[in-house]
């Protein structure tokens, strides 16, 4: 029971009116001898009925009625529905028919809530219908949405172009027991070319050829198309692919020169008028590791230093060694035929024209190049320089045929060395030379291990004095008395170079071990080998991808954390375009943490620490946007979703709300408010009482 016209004014007025009327009645009925009680009773009844009418007393009732229920209309607003544009993409169909669809639904009794669906489900606004760039995660978003709103909704109508990149499959919707009706917005059939697949193993060995295979697909693009293969943003292979019946295949070999994380991108040139060029490139990340350190040892003459370096390299299981030792010079006279000799021609062409790029480290050990590289000598040295620039490690060891006597002054090799070749009368001096670590040598990972043995470092017996360190070089070990540099390291391009200005380092093994039981040669050569070979443990910059960020660790030349160092960072797209750049300082631990919004698609991170000439490159996969790269792929079709969930599949042009399936038979409760006075019975009763009162008054002589 309720009163619909309740306010203190209306109640006050009613009470006043009732009191006045009763007082009037009592006064008017004084003359009556008998029957006045009946009339007063009647008048009170009239007052009560009138009050009921005035206060609009009503009764609330609930009744069960058939209802269409609340449905959610989910409209796909991901990037794909806006291709090639808002006006001609799949979304245009919905925009054109939006009011019509909503009108039809409401007419049929549906209560509609409209949402946009792409990576998540959110209320649809006019802005979301202007441009979309999000990925389509229909099934993933539906699962989350249904769990949230299941209790309130009776059904879902999903309008989409059908392309979905969800992680979950359609059958994960079945246990939710919720009908999803799907409506297809037709995807425009337009000319398009795309890279459908790229196959390359995730783990590959550096300097070992690996095949990159790709499938190119297209619509109305049969013919020849140019493609490019990029390695961390640099083009490494170009060619032409033939597309026939919408398909084409390519397979090319590439060689990755260094260890690390690389992005390999296959990109096909744009076709005029195609649907989108966002799918013209596909990116894969590869991890490049070393198999064994491929090492080349070129030797000018056999000496004890050669004997022990070769012994060290052969014994090391992680080394694949190729040695060439000059056993006979052009001046040597032999009264024997070639067939009696085990000597082979020095394969300068094979080494310097074909094989050089396959090596990780090259040792020139007391090697005078001129008699053996022939007329192509300088040309081959220039090739060596190019390979060093690309990352080849180079170790030059002294002796009587090295440096000045080796003819390296004013050659491409001198330009990469961390030392200059000096003209001196006696390039090699003999004696007993005490050596000591420099301040840099005490900290550098190559030689810091020698610190506890400083008093026990065996003397060297001959040293090259025809070199002097260049400006940026690091001298790690020097001769005590005259300060001659003995071990000098430096960088050239991506390559690392070590100069050892003696051929008597073998004594740190044979003599030191024999006399004192210590071996300083093996740990030193190991470090030099791994450092020159760019082993990961000697990297100055390392990058680690984490879930929400990318961590960059920067070290200085002595491989200690570079605290407060200014670092230039650049993100480059897999095909070499700069996406973003910034300059940052490392923190107290030599670390920079990059948030994921530095670049949101796969990119190549270029890191250039301050005062360094070289740049470091890392392939970062970030978030691979499948919306465009896998435009024509879908895990679950709309039809499948409808079938699995018990909904219907329709096309937007045939949309009919009558066919929509809802959750069970919908019965709703309706609240009805019935005002008591607004019934014929009430009016009849009031009329009868009023008539009776008049009749009695007349009968009993009252006006």
């Amino acid at each position, binding site marked *: 029971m309720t009163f619909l016209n309740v306010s203190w004014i209306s109640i006050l007025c009613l009470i006043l009116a009732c009191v006045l009327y009763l007082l009037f009645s009592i006064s008017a009925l004084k003359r009556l001898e008998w029957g006045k009680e009946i009339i007063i009773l009647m008048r009170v009844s009239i007052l009560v009925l009138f009050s009921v009418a005035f206060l609009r007393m009503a009764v609330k009732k609930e009744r069960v009625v058939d209802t269409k229920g609340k449905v959610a209309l989910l409209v796909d607003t991901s990037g794909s529905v806006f291709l090639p544009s808002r006006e001609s993409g799949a979304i245009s169909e919905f925009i054109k028919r939006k009011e019509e669809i909503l009108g039809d639904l409401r007419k049929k009794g549906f209560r509609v809530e409209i949402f946009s669906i792409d990576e998540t489900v959110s209320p649809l606004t006019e802005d979301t219908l202007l441009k979309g760039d999000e990925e389509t995660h229909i099934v993933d978003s539906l699962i989350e949405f249904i769990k949230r709103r299941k209790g309130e909704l009776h059904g879902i109508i999903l309008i989409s172009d059908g392309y979905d990149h969800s992680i979950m499959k359609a059958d994960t919707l079945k246990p939710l027991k919720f009908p999803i009706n799907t409506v297809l917005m037709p995807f425009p059939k337009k000319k398009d070319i795309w890279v459908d697949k790229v196959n390359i193993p995730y783990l590959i060995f550096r300097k070992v050829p690996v095949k990159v295979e790709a499938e190119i697909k297209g619509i109305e693009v049969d013919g020849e198309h140019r493609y490019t293969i990029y390695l961390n943003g640099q083009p490494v292979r170009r060619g032409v692919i033939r597309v026939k019946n919408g398909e084409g295949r390519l397979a090319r070999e590439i060689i990755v020169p260094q260890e690390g994380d690389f992005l390999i991108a296959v990109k096909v040139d744009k076709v005029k008028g195609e649907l989108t060029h966002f799918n013209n490139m596909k990116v894969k990340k590869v991890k490049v590791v070393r198999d064994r350190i491929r090492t080349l040892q070129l030797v000018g*003459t056999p*000496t004890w230093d050669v*004997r022990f370096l070769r012994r060290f390299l052969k014994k090391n299981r992680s080394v694949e060694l190729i040695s060439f030792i000059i056993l*006979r010079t052009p001046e040597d006279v*032999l009264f024997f035929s070639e067939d009696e000799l*085990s000597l082979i021609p020095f394969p300068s062409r094979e080494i310097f024209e074909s094989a050089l790029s396959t090596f990780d480290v090259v040792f020139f050990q007391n090697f005078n190049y001129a008699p053996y590289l022939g007329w192509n000598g300088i040309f081959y040295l220039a090739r060596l320089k190019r390979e060093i620039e690309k990352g080849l490690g180079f170790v030059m060891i002294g002796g009587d045929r090295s440096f000045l006597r080796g003819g390296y002054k004013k050659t491409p090799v001198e330009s990469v060395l961390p030392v200059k070749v000096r003209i001196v009368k006696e390039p090699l001096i003999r*004696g007993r030379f005490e050596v000591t670590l420099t301040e840099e040598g005490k900290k550098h990972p190559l030689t810091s291990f020698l610190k506890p043995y400083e008093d026990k470092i065996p003397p060297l017996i*001959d040293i090259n004095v025809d070199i002097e360190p260049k400006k940026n070089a690091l001298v790690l070990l020097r001769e005590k008395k005259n300060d001659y540099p003995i071990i000098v390291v430096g960088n050239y391009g991506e390559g690392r170079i070590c100069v050892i200005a003696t051929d008597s380092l073998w*004594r740190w093994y044979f003599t030191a071990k024999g006399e004192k039981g210590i071996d300083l040669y093996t740990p030193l050569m190991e470090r030099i080998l791994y450092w020159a070979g760019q082993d990961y443990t000697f990297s100055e910059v390392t990058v680690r991808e984490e879930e929400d960020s990318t961590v960059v660790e920067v070290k200085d030349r002595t491989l200690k954390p570079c605290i407060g160092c200014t670092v230039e960072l650049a993100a480059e797209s897999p095909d070499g375009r700069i996406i973003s750049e910034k300059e940052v300082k490392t923190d107290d631990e030599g670390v920079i943490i990059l948030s994921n919004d530095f670049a949101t698609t796969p990119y190549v991170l270029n890191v250039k620490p301050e005062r360094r000439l070289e740049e470091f490159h890392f392939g970062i996969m970030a978030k691979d946007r499948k919306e465009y790269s896998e435009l024509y792929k879908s895990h679950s079709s709309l039809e499948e979703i409808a079938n699995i969930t018990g909904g219907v599949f329709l096309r937007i042009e045939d949309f009919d709300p009558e066919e929509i399936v809802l959750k069970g038979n919908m019965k709703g409760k309706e609240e009805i408010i019935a005002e008591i006075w607004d019934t014929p019975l009430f009016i009849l009763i009031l009329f009868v009482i009023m008539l009776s009162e008049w009749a009695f008054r007349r009968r009993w002589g009252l006006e």
Partner: protein
Amino acid sequence: MIALIARVLFLILTFPHGKAPVSEFTWVQMKYDGSYDPFPEAYRNFLKLLEDRTSISPVYEKVFVNPESSEIFSYPILYWTGLSNFKSLSEVAKRNLFRFVKLGGLLFVDNSGNENSGFAISVRDELERIFGEKRIEEVPPEYVVFRSFFLFQINEAKRFKLEGINIDGRYGVVIANSVLRKFMVDESYFKLLINIVMYALTTDYKTDRVHERFILRRLR
């Protein structure tokens, strides 16, 4: 007492003197209580031929090393020759020689007398004492020492009856007969001597795959 004085004198006289060791090939001969240098000038002729025929630039100095001295570890090759039997080496000398070979040195034993000379017998006994259960065995004719510079056919190689003691997969002791005595008169001994020196300096270089094809073709 006399023996002690003699030993002290011997050590003083054989104390290393003169120039520091170098990385180039040096003729290093073991000095011991016996006929340790029966052909004093032969080495010089050999070194001359070595320099003329190969890329090696030897040092024209003969160095005598007492195996009791730590100087043995300054030269990774040691030539041990003699004619007659000799007294057993001291324990220090034996230990040094063992370590010398174990660390990668080459002990080149050359019997300068006839096949059954006193030296040949004594040195075998001594080697057995030094190397224990490591046996003296025939060096196979395919072994790298027979192809380290000159190529020897199988029959040629077998002629030398070269023996050795295998230490850690290589012949660290090589035992030959009169190589230094005969190299000037017999070309094959000259070739063998060159090969032994090359073997000392390059070890198994000629077993690398890059040489295999050439060597096999030439041997055929």
